[in-house]
């Protein structure tokens, strides 16, 4: 399946020559999505890693039409572009946003909610590297429990971030959005399939893709894909879709791999003690009980 997807994927590059760190999961997600959406994709990227590494005049790294939006304005700029191009008589294009976790779940959530509410014909892709990586690894609303960031230090009193990830997938779904999905660059074929599917659906589409950041996560630069796979295999992330009012689970691990092993591989979780890890596992199990109850599996 993965090989077939790779063979089908366009050889054209739309995002290259940029300054992303080695092993950047976000860059991989953007590159793959644009290969699916092609030349007539118009990409909008807010302030964040991908705009910081891709738009340094005169070194401009997108070969499709691309524009930086304000940090809070990914979705609202997508709306304007989609409406403007339509008003000018274009129909064969895709307005696609690539915003990070902070740009989506924190500062950009209002504009995103507005766009979904209007059912604007756009694809919004959140590349989630679980902290404000561009500014130097500060906590965002999508930083997981226990993670050490530069604003959630791990010390004797507080063991990193105290709060779980905001549930953006179900928040998007709660708008009764035409299509929402979760993905991971560790399951790239699944992500690509979801981008392909989103491109065929009219209205607002939201895809939330886990995109590890070796710099911020404290992993080797060649471990990005592996760790992005492992987060799904150990059950701390899941691959799912929301469509026509129904949640569908796309991938069900037979047995979860070790949560502890997943956490201990990463510098940001090294400080967690057994109680912390127990909390993470309990939270995972609670989530999966919810999934078993409310998601169909195919």
């Amino acid at each position, binding site marked *: 399946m993965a090989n077939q997807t790779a063979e089908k994927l366009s050889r054209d590059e739309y995002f290259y020559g940029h300054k992303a760190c080695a092993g950047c999961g976000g860059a991989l997600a953007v590159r793959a999505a644009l290969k699916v959406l092609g*030349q*007539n994709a*118009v990409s*909008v990227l807010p302030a964040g890693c991908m*705009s*910081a590494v*891709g*738009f*340094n*005049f*005169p070194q*401009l*790294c*997108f*070969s*499709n*039409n*691309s*524009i*930086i*939006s*304000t940090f*809070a*304005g990914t*979705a*609202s*700029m*997508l*709306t*304007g*572009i*989609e*409406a*403007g*191009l*339509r*008003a*000018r008589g*274009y129909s064969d*294009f895709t307005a696609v946003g690539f915003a990070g976790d902070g740009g989506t779940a924190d500062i950009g959530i*209002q*504009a995103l*909610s*507005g766009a979904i*509410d*209007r059912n604007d014909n756009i694809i919004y892709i959140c590349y989630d590297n679980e902290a404000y990586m561009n500014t130097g690894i500060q906590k965002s609303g999508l930083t997981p429990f226990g993670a050490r960031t530069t604003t959630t230090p791990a010390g004797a009193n507080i063991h990193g971030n105290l709060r779980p990830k905001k549930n953006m997938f179900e928040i998007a779904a709660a708008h009764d959005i035409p299509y929402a999905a979760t993905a991971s660059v560790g399951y790239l074929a699944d992500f690509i399939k979801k981008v392909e599917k989103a491109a065929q659906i009219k209205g607002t589409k939201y895809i939330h893709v886990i995109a590890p950041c070796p710099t911020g996560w404290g992993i080797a630069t060649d471990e990005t894909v592996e760790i992005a796979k492992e987060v799904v295999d150990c059950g701390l992330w899941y691959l799912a879709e929301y469509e026509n009012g129904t949640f569908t689970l796309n991938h069900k691990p037979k047995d979860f791999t070790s949560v502890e092993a997943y956490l201990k591989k990463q510098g940001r979780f090294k400080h967690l003690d057994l109680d912390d890890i127990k909390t993470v596992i309990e939270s995972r199990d609670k989530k999966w009980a919810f999934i078993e109850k409310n998601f169909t599996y195919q």
Partner: protein
Amino acid sequence: MSKRFLSGNEAFAEGIRLAKPDVISAYPITPQTIVVERLSEMVEDGSLKSEFIHVESEHSALSCAIGASASGARAFTATSSQGLLYMAECLYYASGGRFPIVMMNADRSTALPWNIYGDQRDSLSQLDSGWIQVYAENAQEALDLALMSWRIAEDSRVSTPVMVNLDGFVLTHTYETVEIPEQAQADRFLPPYVTGNRIDFDNPKNMAFSAGPDTNFVFKYKAHAGMLAAKDVVAETEDAFAEIFGRQYSGLLDSYRTEDADYILVTLGSIAGLCRETADRLREQGIRAGVVRIRYMRPFPNAEIAAALQNAKAFGVLEKDVSFGNEGTVYTNVNSALQKAGVRIPGYNFIGGLGGRNISAGDIAQMFADIQDGTEHVNFIGIGGDGNGESNG
């Protein structure tokens, strides 16, 4: 051409209908609401073929307009007060990206304390945002500016967004008889927007990019130059407007009986009419009074102001604004114009109308008396003092 009895907001909406924007993004705020209500009705009845986007905030209103403009579309939005401040980030974004958006601002007081009435602290706080700023005096001028501002903004020498300011309630909600031009006239005056600064599928672009210390300065300089080029483009646009519509406007400022005036009051917006009437009455008493109404605060009419004031004995600046800890911003700008031109005459700042407080004909007559006799540099009308002492208001 037809005549209708319209409020300032309604007149402006008629001007926007004639300009045929492709995209309108709108979020309601008093006293701007009537504009977007009327535009939504025009879209509903089919007399305006625009994409009408119900955005969820002013930040998104302007962000959406920027996206539309980047796609090569003509984009309009409107706001006021807190809304203008909320979208402030996008103001700089639009001007830096050279997106010729037109926005109406209903000039309104800024919180705290909360207040919905008219003053100009909202727009004047954004003088540095890179937008052309023009202040209408009456409903007809508002409608005409709705048409002219597009032609100025979209001129390739300018490529700068325009903020058209209407005094909240006093102008936005006051009804006057207004001439509505024919669509054919408007089409002749305002051709469709054509630009290279847009998304292009044949020649894809990376837009709104980063520029480091070596090039950033150059982009800023070019934006400044574009704004300065608007001075000539305003004049050309007004001449073309007069040819088609028969109304001639007076450029960056409007001088009234200043040629032989000893005492000149400089102001902006809807209060100018009362200032001119007061000057007429004073002239009947033998006092040679004149009025300068600044129409464009950006680009600022430095030379024109100096020329209008150079033969006067003294001047005053009446504005609905104060920069706390200093003085009114219009006063600062006018003083700078005179200093650069070597005009050395006494000048006084009259700050009034904050939070919608009325400015009466008697207040204005007193200002002329104070200009003649000399007073504090900064005066708060109805409160007194220069801001250093106790208030008795």
